[in-house]
């Protein structure tokens, strides 16, 4: 009906061009006629368009800014190396406001109006969950760089896939042995009282128990809370370690108040850097974190033993050795998560090349190609480290970093193995129809 209203679109419509190509496709390889070749080349040099669902406004904006920068850097690198299947990559960005309702609308906009090849880049789990139905209905691949358990749980659909960053369940499992062996066995958990926090609660406690450690208290903080001191008396006196994970703008208050409350004499601390992403470790009030440990997806501070690939990645994104923007030391990155953008874009490239991706009619092949991935080697494409992809649950597994705060910097003291994070899959997306 679009065509009926716009007669000229019969000539320019990509559908008719593609169907023409399809007809030619079989013979094009055999036909050496120059005219055909030129036609095929102009076709194949049209950019691959990736819809980037970005958190430009709303609670995720700190992450969103760095996700945009990492994405731009990765696309620049990919294009400089010849693009994907010889075609350049073009990013079309839409702001989702870190809001699930707007997220779903944006997916529709990408699919129906921008007509991108796929959608990519979302971090916050409620936006992923809210957008997933739209992606499934419109049958558009949705590559997310989130970290909740929502993708791996099997509750979404076959079009949603998370190949660039590990999920919370794997993170919890990976760090549990190290905590119980090196920090302490009686653990109190403090986490936000919503799904992300509950994932930590549900997956860390059993993993700790397997290691002979014990979670002796679980304190769920309402996400509307902006001060935390009042909850600290609930931390039992026998606690060896406080396992803390918080998100949102109040996280700095949380760690500061913890310091004021205990004054360096309390239990040891193990935290997820999510609390301090985009926050300078040298911020006033954080001095008491000295000696405490953090999970990091990828180290914020440049480590002495960093690989060539990691250094190249950091340079491309524009990070100084403290993990801040090279041109503004106060602009601290979210490096523990944003590397996932870089790696996901390379997965997309790899999958498109494996699938011989030509256009949106190959979207299904693209998902199947990603599902077929198993081992991923450390290198330029995967600077964070080697990974293993499980096509059944659309989830990647990788190494985790445990870092200690020394002189206001995070130094990696332990890297977990991929195996530490593996768990029995609870779902199988590959049995779902498209």
């Amino acid at each position, binding site marked *: 009906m679009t065509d009926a209203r716009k007669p000229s679109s019969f000539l320019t419509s990509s559908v008719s061009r593609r169907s023409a190509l399809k007809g030619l496709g079989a013979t094009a390889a055999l036909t050496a006629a120059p005219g055909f070749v030129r036609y095929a080349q102009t076709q194949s040099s049209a950019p691959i368009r990736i819809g980037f669902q970005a958190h430009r406004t709303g609670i995720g904006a700190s992450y969103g800014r760095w996700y945009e920068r990492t994405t731009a850097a990765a696309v620049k690198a990919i294009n400089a190396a010849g693009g994907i299947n010889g075609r350049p990559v073009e990013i079309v960005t839409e702001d989702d406001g870190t809001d699930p309702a707007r997220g779903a609308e944006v997916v*529709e906009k990408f699919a129906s109006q921008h007509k991108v090849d796929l959608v990519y880049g979302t971090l916050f789990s409620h936006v992923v*969950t*809210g957008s997933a*139905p739209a992606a*499934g209905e419109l049958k558009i691949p949705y590559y997310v760089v989130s970290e909740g358990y929502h993708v791996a749980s099997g*509750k979404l659909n076959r079009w949603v896939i998370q190949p660039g960053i590990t999920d919370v369940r794997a993170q919890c499992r990976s760090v549990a042995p190290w905590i119980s062996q090196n920090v302490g066995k009686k653990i109190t958990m403090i986490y936000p009282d919503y799904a992300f926090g509950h994932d930590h609660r549900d997956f860390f406690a059993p993993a700790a128990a397997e290691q002979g450690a014990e979670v002796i208290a679980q304190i769920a903080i309402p996400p509307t809370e902006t001060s935390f001191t009042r909850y600290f008396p609930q931390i039992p006196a026998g606690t060896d370690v406080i396992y803390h994970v918080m998100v949102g703008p109040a996280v700095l208050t949380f760690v500061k108040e913890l310091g004021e409350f205990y004054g360096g004499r309390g239990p040891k601390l193990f935290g997820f850097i999510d609390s301090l992403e985009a926050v300078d470790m040298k911020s006033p009030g954080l001095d008491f974190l000295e000696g405490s440990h953090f999970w990091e997806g990828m180290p914020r501070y440049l480590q002495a033993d960093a690989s060539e690939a990691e250094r190249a990645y950091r340079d491309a994104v524009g990070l100084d050795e403290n993990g801040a923007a090279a041109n503004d030391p106060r602009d601290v990155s979210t490096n523990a998560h944003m590397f996932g953008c870089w790696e996901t874009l390379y997965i997309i490239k790899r999958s498109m090349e494996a699938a011989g991706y030509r256009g949106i009619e190959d979207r299904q092949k693209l998902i199947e190609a990603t599902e077929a991935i198993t081992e991923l080697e450390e290198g330029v494409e995967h600077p964070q480290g080697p990974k293993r992809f499980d096509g059944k649950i659309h989830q990647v597994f990788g190494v985790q970093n445990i870092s200690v705060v020394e002189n206001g910097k995070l130094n990696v003291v332990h890297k977990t193995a991929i195996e530490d994070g593996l768990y029995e899959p609870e779902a199988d997306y590959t049995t779902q129809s498209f």
Partner: protein
Amino acid sequence: MNGTASARVWLLHLAFIAALVAAGFLLPDYHRGVFSRILVLAVFAMGYNLLLGYCGLLSLGHAMFFAAGLYGAGLPLYHLGWGVPASFLAGVAAGGGLAFVVGALALRTVGVAFMIVTMMFAQVVYLTTLYFTTWTRGEEGLVLPPAARRVGFGDTVLSLSDPTSRYAIALTLFSIVLLAMLRLVRSPFGRTLAGIRENEERMRMLGYDTFRAKLSAVVVSGLACAAAGAAYGLLFGYVGSGFASIQYSILPLLWVLVGGAATTLGPLLGTAFMFYVIDYASGLTTAWLVLVGAALIFVVLFFPKGILGTVRERWLKWLP
């Protein structure tokens, strides 16, 4: 009001609905999808408008009724495997029940106190959706599986995830609520509400049970908003705490005030206006909230009674 004027009003609304039916065939995919959402959200706004526009009660807590519908429909479908019609009715019933309780309590207050009490009750509902994260998945929310979002009529199966049937269902719901609202506000009950809005004391002295009338208005408003919430969840397949947050109490207020309070078509106009301003502005600049804010101020400077409200005041006095 004479017969011809009344006929003109009904004709206008029927023509409006006919135009929306036609739009279902003419709109490009993206805009048809957008309008499916706008129509459902406009039901939410119309429910809100009954209270604010026609009864003069400013609530800052209507997210709780939308959420009651959303969760009332979504949870039984997700956890108990209920069918779509039963889930929808459960959502509407949940909204009606909640509205009755909240209305009975909050209507003891008037004016700004009513606004604050409803806001706090809504905050309680929001926190409740988080407290029961085990079942609701809190802010992350639940995806309602497409397989469960189907209605069978004999041999034909209507899938709510199909864009065409989705538009048809959204439009049907919108049309029913629109015509019901039109009928309602032109009925003696509607005039009682308007009387309460203008001068409650006088209505009471005239022998009207104003509390009862206001409570009825709250319940009808709650039912409409819950119907919108239930439809939103079932049609778009997602249920999450965000819809219970204060933002979704402020949005219907904004839609109604922008479109024109106490106009029947204003809520739809306001909802569509806000959607397209955001959609357009966010394509122009990354700092799009400035444009949205400026657009709001601009609209209100030139249309202080909302778009349709001001049009009615200045030009089309017969608009309902």
